[in-house]
């Protein structure tokens, strides 16, 4: 595992198809990327990792022609290449698979694949040729949707595949994947990774950008690490553990991503007064007869695939969706919530999984975002107490370590990690005794992740109780005292102690087996 990438090319391997030499990029005088050199060889998966803001997406946009480098040169097959627009890079055989799904939902799969490069004969669209080509392309990557399906009718995973089919259309020599699995659940990831391996086998050079270091470990032949816009180095992926990658990314050793677990014995003592009990929850179309108990001071994990009903269960609980419950007890007292406001009043806070769409007003400044769910706190008698609100923001910035350039910044200008911290501070302003956190660390970097885990741990140490919904199994295993696994709207298993392993969680999430069959089952309630 050496940083000298020159030494890494074994004899007999073909030369690089795309090579970047000393790339640098400035935006209005600010250097976001400097002195980055790397090469992509046919039949190789080259991963690029780094924290948010390390320059990954800038690099990717330089390589795919969306941006022009301020300094440095690109070489295609050894000859200098200059891409004036993304179309130039596309013509040279470089495709980019975007992180977000950029498809027109009202159009068909085939129309989306050919958007902007439609096949026409004598000026008239040749729908059949496009449909056939789309079908062939989809079949090639094992995507089972029909070219005639409307994009809005197909699943998220299939949309991602359609997007890949679109990128792969035409002969591709280099494919750049920008966090392709970010929007997928655990069992949707494998088929996608298989497609990437298949592309590699066919001799395509692949640049793979991901936050998920386990995927990088599994896929990559070489790994380039970026930090603060500079290159840390290019490493042979063989023997590079996720922990080592993480230390290279942040520039220091990581003892552990997760805070120390609390003593299980201490938890057991409070069993007489559970913080939250849900009995017989029904959310039409999503959840069937779910009952669960959250003990006081516990971090309870909720695992399962997207669509298993985890988010919907709690949206139903808070009155955000039509739902019915046989009984809900909060600290032993029967309750029923008809709105998040009422739930907040009684001490239940919910952090949405969709911080940009449902959590924060991105165009609004920080203080109004912070207090939006707790305006009573800044409304002593008549008007809003703006000075008091500014104090609350100061305190939130300090206690949740929110990094910002100015107090006047808009929420949308914060990094994902800092947005998540602001969202946590917003929900905590109501001082909930029971906190439900949906995807606490989606799309945020390792340093912020580890901080958020520490916040959650300290919240339960204060006597609060917490439910964590997550699609990242490692996160649940590292953080939670107990994990419930949902499948198809029901709770399909409960895991605690040593039984909390990835394979057990995956088994419960996908098989119809109940937890009776899970090895090492360890339930004490």
């Amino acid at each position, binding site marked *: 595992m050496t940083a000298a990438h020159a030494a890494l090319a074994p004899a007999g391997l073909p030369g690089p198809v795309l090579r970047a030499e000393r790339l640098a990029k400035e935006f209005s005088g600010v250097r976001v990327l400097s002195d980055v050199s790397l090469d992509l060889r046919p039949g190789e998966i080259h991963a690029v990792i780094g924290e948010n803001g390390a320059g990954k997406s800038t690099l990717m946009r330089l390589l795919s022609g969306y941006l022009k480098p301020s300094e440095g040169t690109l070489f295609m097959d050894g000859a200098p290449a200059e891409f004036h627009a993304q179309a130039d890079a596309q013509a040279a055989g470089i495709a980019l698979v975007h992180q977000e799904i950029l498809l027109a939902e009202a159009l068909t799969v085939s129309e989306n694949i050919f958007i902007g490069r439609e096949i026409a004969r004598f000026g008239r669209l040749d729908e059949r040729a496009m449909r056939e080509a789309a079908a062939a392309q989809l079949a090639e990557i094992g995507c089972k949707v029909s070219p005639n399906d409307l994009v809005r009718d197909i699943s998220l995973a299939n949309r991602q595949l359609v997007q890949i089919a679109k990128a792969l259309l035409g002969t591709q020599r280099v494919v750049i994947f920008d966090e392709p699995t970010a929007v997928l659940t655990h069992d949707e990831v494998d088929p996608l990774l298989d497609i990437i391996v298949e592309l590699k086998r066919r001799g395509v050079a692949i640049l793979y950008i991901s936050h998920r270091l386990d995927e990088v470990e599994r896929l990559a032949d070489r790994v380039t690490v970026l930090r603060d816009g500079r290159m840390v180095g290019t490493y042979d992926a063989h023997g590079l553990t996720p922990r080592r990658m993480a230390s290279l990314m942040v520039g220091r050793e990581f003892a552990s991503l997760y805070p120390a677990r609390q003593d299980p014995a201490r938890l057991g003592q409070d069993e007489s007064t559970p913080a939250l009990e849900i009995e017989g929850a029904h959310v039409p179309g999503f959840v069937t007869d779910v009952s669960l108990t959250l003990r006081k001071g516990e971090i309870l994990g909720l695992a399962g695939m997207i669509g298993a009903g985890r988010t919907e269960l709690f949206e139903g609980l808070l009155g955000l969706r039509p739902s019915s419950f046989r009984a809900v007890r909060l600290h032993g007292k029967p309750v029923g919530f008809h709105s998040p406001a009422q739930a907040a009043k009684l001490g239940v806070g919910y952090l*949405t999984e969709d911080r940009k769409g449902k959590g924060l007003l991105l*165009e609004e400044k920080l203080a109004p975002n912070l207090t939006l769910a707790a305006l009573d706190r800044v409304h002593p008698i*008549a*008007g809003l107490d*703006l000075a008091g609100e500014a104090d609350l923001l100061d305190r939130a910035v300090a206690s949740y370590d929110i990094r910002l350039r100015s*107090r006047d910044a808009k929420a949308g200008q914060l990094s994902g990690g800092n947005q998540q911290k602001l969202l946590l501070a917003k929900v905590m302003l109501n001082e909930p005794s029971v906190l439900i956190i949906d995807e606490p660390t989606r799309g945020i970097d390792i340093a912020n992740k580890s901080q958020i885990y520490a916040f959650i741990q300290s919240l339960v140490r204060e006597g609060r109780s917490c439910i964590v919904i997550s699609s990242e199994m490692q996160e649940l295993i590292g953080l939670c005292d107990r994990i419930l696994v949902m499948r198809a709207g029901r709770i399909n298993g409960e895991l605690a102690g040593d039984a909390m392993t990835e394979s057990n969680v995956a088994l419960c999430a996908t098989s119809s087996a109940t937890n009776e069959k899970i090895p090492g089952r360890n339930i004490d309630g």
Partner: protein
Amino acid sequence: MADLAAAPPRAQHGWSIGWGDAGPFLALAALVLIGFLINPDFLSANNIANVVTRSAFIAIIAIGATFVIASGGLDLSVGSMAAFITGVMILFMNWAAPSVGTAAIPLGMAVALVTSIACGLLNGTIVTIGRIEPFIATLGTMGIFRALITYMTNGGTIAIDRSLRDAYRPVYFGDVLGVPIPILVSLAVALVAAYVLYRTRYGRRCVAVGANEDVARYSGISVARVRTLAFVIQGACVAIAAVCYVPRLGAATPTTGLLWELQVITAVVIGGTALRGGRGRVWGTVAGAVILEFIANLMVLSDFVSEYLVAAVQGVIIIIAMLIQRMSKR
């Protein structure tokens, strides 16, 4: 995680105005300057007072529209609602005058307020409970109100009773210390509105609902209540404007308030309120209403453009204002 050493300076709070918000006021200043260069009479105290007084109705209604638009709605019915309210008010006053005398005026004002709040509530509930797009809902009620006033007037006019005319006159033509009453009323409405929008929970919620309905919902805000209340505020503003308007015309006709919705929405958008919601600017709206009236006045005072083209110029202005909003976004 310990390098939070240099905490950024705290923002100035209060009534400070950013450069982006100064736009409508700069435009207003420029317009005054141009007006003076074209025709020095433009700056005479008399003309200015006249123009601003005339802009008061649009300003008051547009202040209400600022709430509706900031909360992500739109109300096309304001013009015909104003006509309908005027008709209801005059009919009521004429009916009551023989028995209660001039006391019919304050009673009529109260009736106008109650009726228009009911109209606003109707718009609001169609939008929120009926889940109809505000554009369609208020397009419908716009037709309804317009038809009602045409029906009430039988296609002609309903004039205010002679016995009330003199007593009511000062509401439009009177002044306090030289400042015409409609200007004072619109200033008062703007002050209250600015307080409500910027300094109360309702104002925050209103803007939040317009910025992102989901965020508002997940933050425990009752989106339907906030939206409905915005339409009610709009109704109340229409009533206040109608009350000031009655003495000027002395009658309600089927053409009263025609195309006011265009002027109102134009004033709001020129003022810096985001048409897709999420940002409201009360004083900008007032400036926008004055700008519109200044332009109309300039067109009358100068001979460049026929005054019959006033609506066309206003139409051009709303498009330019939207283009500026779009460009300042990026």
